[in-house]
């Protein structure tokens, strides 16, 4: 900061200095930024799309069937038209309108489920680590038990029995299965931090337990918490998409997974209607790559040894 007045002014030096400053703040690493931009792109698509595109085209039969995207030709030698730039599916729905409606839905389910799971996990993890004794045993065994149960299989039973569910309901159901890993993570960290110097110092100076938990320890856990949150968003979306591809999940709201389900069932692979399943697949892939990049970026923040490598 103060060294700018005497710094050598070659271009290379300035570039190095700039890079060094940038890396001083671990939250500004390129992976994190790239990942966040990919997710923002999907959110922007969902929000802006609602203003510029006619969403009535998601209704069955509102467009011609099986038109290809612009610039391509389908097996019946029909050219794509600008009215439906990403093509249409076998039920006469516009793919662009489908993804504008569907993409934010997947992200919403993931975020909501993970957020609920996180809150439960933070509460249980801190309780287990701090209270100890029988409470700790109960929470530990319960999270050990629940972590081995694949959520998809329980949810399959649930949705097969109840039929249609709303998006929020699906998020709530998934949330029942994503609280374990934050609980375990926080419990382990709390146990190791409890004996560390600054926590004992706070205890000696008479700070209350909630103060120590939330003002002293929680800030140190933030990178781990974010990492765990993002990992849970991924798990939740994978579970939601899995249910949708099995034909379960919300039936009346367009989702990316359900679009893929319908495409497979209609034999879109053999009929070479790649845009029908391919575009939702691509969008989901972008979503997952974005989440992975964010997670890698967060890893570098919480484990500085990784930073040297990239």
């Amino acid at each position, binding site marked *: 900061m103060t060294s700018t007045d005497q710094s050598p002014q070659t271009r290379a030096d300035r570039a190095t200095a700039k890079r060094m400053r940038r890396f001083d703040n671990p939250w500004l690493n390129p992976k994190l930024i790239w990942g966040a931009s990919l997710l923002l792109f999907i959110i922007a698509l969902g929000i802006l799309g609602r203003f510029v595109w006619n969403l009535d085209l998601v209704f069955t039969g509102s467009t011609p069937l099986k038109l290809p995207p612009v610039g391509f030709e389908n097996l019946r030698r029909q050219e794509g038209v600008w009215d439906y730039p990403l093509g249409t599916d076998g039920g006469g729905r516009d793919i662009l309108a489908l993804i504008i409606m569907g993409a934010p839905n997947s992200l919403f389910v993931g975020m909501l489920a993970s957020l609920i799971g996180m809150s439960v996990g933070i509460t249980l993890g801190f309780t287990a680590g701090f209270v100890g004794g029988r409470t700790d045993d109960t929470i530990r*065994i319960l999270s*050990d*038990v*629940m*972590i*081995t*149960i*694949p*959520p*998809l*299989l*329980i949810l*399959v*039973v*649930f949705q*097969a*029995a*109840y*039929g249609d569910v709303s998006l929020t309901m699906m998020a709530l159901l998934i949330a029942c299965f994503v609280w374990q*890993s934050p609980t375990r993570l926080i419990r382990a960290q709390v146990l190791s931090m409890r004996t560390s110097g600054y926590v004992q110092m706070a205890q000696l100076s008479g700070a209350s337990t909630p103060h120590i938990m939330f003002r002293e320890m929680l800030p140190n856990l933030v990178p781990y918490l974010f990492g765990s949150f993002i990992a849970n968003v*991924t*798990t939740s979306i*994978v*579970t939601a*998409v*899995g249910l949708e*591809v*099995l*034909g*379960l999940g919300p039936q009346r709201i367009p989702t990316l997974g359900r679009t*893929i389900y319908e495409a*497979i069932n209609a034999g879109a*692979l*053999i009929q*070479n209607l*790649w845009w029908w*399943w*391919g575009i939702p*697949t691509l969008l*989901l*892939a972008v979503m*997952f*790559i974005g*989440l*992975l*990049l964010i997670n*890698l970026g967060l*890893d570098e923040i919480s*484990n500085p*040894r*990784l930073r040297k*490598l*990239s």
Partner: protein
Amino acid sequence: MGRIPRSYLINRVITLLLTVWIAATLIWIIPRLSPVDPAEIALGRMAAGAGSVANADEILAQLRASMGIDQPLLIQYLKYLGGALTFDFGLSTASFPTPVSQLIASALPWTLGLMILSLVITFVIGNLLGALMVWERSPNLVKVAIPAAMVFTSIPPILSGLLLMWVFSAQLQWFPLTGAYGLTVEPGWTWSFVQSVLHHGFLPAVSIVIVTFGFWALGMRGLMITVQGEDYVKLAEAKGLRPRYILYRYMIRNAILPQITAFALKIGLLVAGQVLVERIFAYNGMGKLLYDAILDQDFPVIQGISYVIILMTAVSVFLVDLIYPFIDPRIRHEGDT
């Protein structure tokens, strides 16, 4: 060293039993809370087949009695738990009167085979690549190419499966589109059958491998960084051992151990992913059976499959936990003094 303390063993066994019990209870209780009546579904299926059904009320009562749902809930529950212990889930309602256990038994070998094959391949490839990413002597190409390839490993296997299926089965027609073996070959231990199975299993296995190896590679990378700075590696280098020998015998051998516990946490998700891959490839395993059962609202089959898969997961986690102290003597359990 390596001896399992009794308290640890008891703890693990209790966890295993609790997992299976909670899962079995959830699977049983959820459909009971729903307004759907399985007897009415069965009656509906009859009516759809025959046009109309006479004496519907009597048949309904008969069906309820044969399904055991006219009894008090507690007795139903205890009977169900007893059945679950002996893998008896009653009869399938869609392909009546085949027992559910028979359907599952015929699908299980396919699922297990595909799973073990893809797991072994992905574990070896993933850990090797993760180690090479950290190793100083690996070519620069490796250090650039692997992280780039790994970006795609965040994708769930259904998506990669769809993509591979489109390119290699629908477009290039190198591999068959669906099924676990050809329609023209006779199942048996003949060369043509084995060939057909391998041919059909290749794409599903690859679609699982290419999206899961990154998980192991990432974990291995983190562990290798820790191992790299250890004194024994420095000593080995100072002794002038060949770098490749150090990599395999000193670094990977020590770094790989915690990866085995990571396996225990991951297996649930892997299984769920594979069920979906089997569904899109119409592979003759549990995934396809589950999907068909969902379409037919065949509850005994859905319950049976969920139960068996959760049991498999819980048992593998239990085994990993038991074996681990034998492979890694550094681990000491609580109570082991």
